[in-house]
């Protein structure tokens, strides 16, 4: 238990630095160990106040001592907040240089900055130079290209047709072209004349002769495929308009010459079947089967001569329709 804890129960006095508390004397008496501390404290205070270097120690040695003699050189950056006597009591013994004022533009920082700025300027200048060079180089390249093009274009001839256009070599070339043109026209004319001749010859033929010729040439009715009669209620296919291109001999390829309406599997004569089974192909047995079989079945025309309307009346009616007025007029 030390003195402090003993005092705990009492009113605490205010602590002031440098002044020993009331319990300090008691504590000193109680503990002998604390004596040493006190003496040390005393010594330290005395040294701080009465610090002196014996005169016999050489000056150079003093300078080397780090703590005792801090080297004070007046640099520009150093700022002194306190008087030197207060801060370093031993400085009276060291050599002190007088702080001199260095003007702004002679200070090291200023010079450094200037050097840095100069360097930057130089770099910028170099960059600018490089860009300029690039520009001029591209200009030269473009100019060269344009010049080359112009030379290429205008190398050989002058714009107005001068005698230079009409050289002997050109004349020969022209002659070839002209002959080719004449030949072309001539060939066209010959072909045309041949066609007209052929046309006239065929017109002069009799019908029988023409038919015979067609047979030989193979471009008449006989050349067409023979069509089979289609069966009762057989499905009909229209030929359509596509794939009708003919080759240079005016013939269709074999595959397009085939009869589309030839009966195939499933096509048989349905007239033999009982009426109930006469359904369209694929319709039989289905819910949606149609009662209609074929168009003639649905024709309501009465063909009985008994019920035919009078021909005269029919004609009169028909004459009222479009296109019949000048039916029998052949003059213009």
């Amino acid at each position, binding site marked *: 238990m030390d003195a402090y804890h003993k005092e705990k129960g009492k009113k605490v006095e205010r602590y002031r630095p440098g002044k020993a508390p009331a319990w300090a004397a008691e504590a000193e008496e109680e503990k002998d160990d604390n004596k040493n501390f006190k003496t040390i404290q005393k010594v330290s205070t005395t040294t701080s106040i009465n610090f002196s270097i014996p005169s016999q120690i050489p000056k150079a040695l003093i300078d080397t001592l780090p703590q005792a003699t801090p080297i004070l050189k007046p640099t520009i950056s150093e700022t002194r907040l306190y008087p030197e006597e207060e801060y370093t009591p031993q400085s009276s013994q060291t050599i002190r240089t007088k702080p001199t004022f260095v003007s702004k533009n002679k200070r090291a920082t200023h010079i450094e900055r200037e050097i840095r700025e100069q360097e930057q300027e130089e770099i910028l200048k170099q960059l600018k130079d490089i860009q300029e060079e690039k520009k001029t180089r591209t200009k030269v390249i473009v100019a060269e290209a344009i010049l080359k093009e112009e030379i*290429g*274009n*205008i190398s*050989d*001839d002058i*714009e*107005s*047709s001068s*005698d*230079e*256009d*009409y*050289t*002997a*070599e*050109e*004349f*020969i*070339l*022209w*002659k*070839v*072209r*002209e*002959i*080719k*043109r*004449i*030949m072309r*026209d001539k060939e066209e*004319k010959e072909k*045309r004349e041949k066609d007209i001749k052929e046309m006239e010859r065929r017109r002069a033929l009799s019908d029988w002769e023409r038919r015979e010729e067609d047979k030989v040439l193979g471009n008449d009715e006989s050349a067409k495929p023979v069509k089979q009669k289609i069966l009762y209620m057989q499905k009909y296919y229209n030929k359509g308009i596509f794939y009708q291109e003919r080759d240079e001999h005016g013939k269709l390829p074999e595959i397009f010459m085939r009869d589309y309406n030839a009966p195939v599997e499933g096509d048989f004569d349905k007239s033999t079947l009982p009426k109930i089974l006469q359904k369209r192909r694929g319709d039989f047995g289905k819910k949606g089967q149609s009662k209609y079989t074929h168009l003639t079945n649905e024709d309501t025309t009465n063909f009985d001569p008994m019920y035919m309307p009078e021909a005269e009346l029919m004609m009169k009616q028909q004459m009222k329709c479009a296109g019949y007025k000048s039916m029998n007029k052949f003059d213009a």
Partner: protein
Amino acid sequence: MTEEYAHGTNPIFLIDKIVRTKIYACVYYKEKCFALDAKTIIDKAVELKCIGGTCGGSKKPTAFLCLLLKLLKISPEREIVQKYIESNYKYLRALGCMYLRLVGKPDDIYLTLESLYNDYCKLRIKLPDGSFSTTYMDEFVDDLLVKDIYLETVLPKIPKRHTLEDNEGLEPRVSVLDGELTFVDGDLEEEQFPDSSSIGRSKKKAKLGEGGQNPQKAPAPESDEYWINLRKQLGLAPVKEPNK
């Protein structure tokens, strides 16, 4: 061509809408073709460097096409067009021909353009990919008469020459070489066409029909004299002295 309308419409409609829009948008048309008339357009036509339709990915119209549209707008009279066609400047001639082909009457087109079959001056043509090629005035005129679409322009339909000959009494075309050709008619296939392959290479090898009427007296095709005489017969400008 005094009439305001060609083929029943405004002549500018002879150039397709898309091409026309491109022409209106092009710098040359805006800058150089402004306020031109039948006389001042000559200066621009003389300065032309090439014929051509449109070229490049953006289908940029050539100056030739711009001037053609301007000419269609101006609609000069037939006599003026004739002056263009007879002028000394080949691109002006070409422009005049193209214009006449677009707005002229069929028989007039045939008669006028066929007179240029004898003109073999070189024309530079700008191809759709932007490159240049050489053509000749006679080829150009032939294309105008034969083709349906030429230089991005739809050429109006004209009847074939033979129908005009049959129906409207147009005289059949007489080529300046007709006399020569009838002379070698029988041997045309054997003599003329093998020559045509060798013609471009050497002047000496080129064997041509020997001046129609009197083959014995005519100078040899090798000599310059022969060519000068031939050109005189055809009514063409004399041959320039070859470089020696």
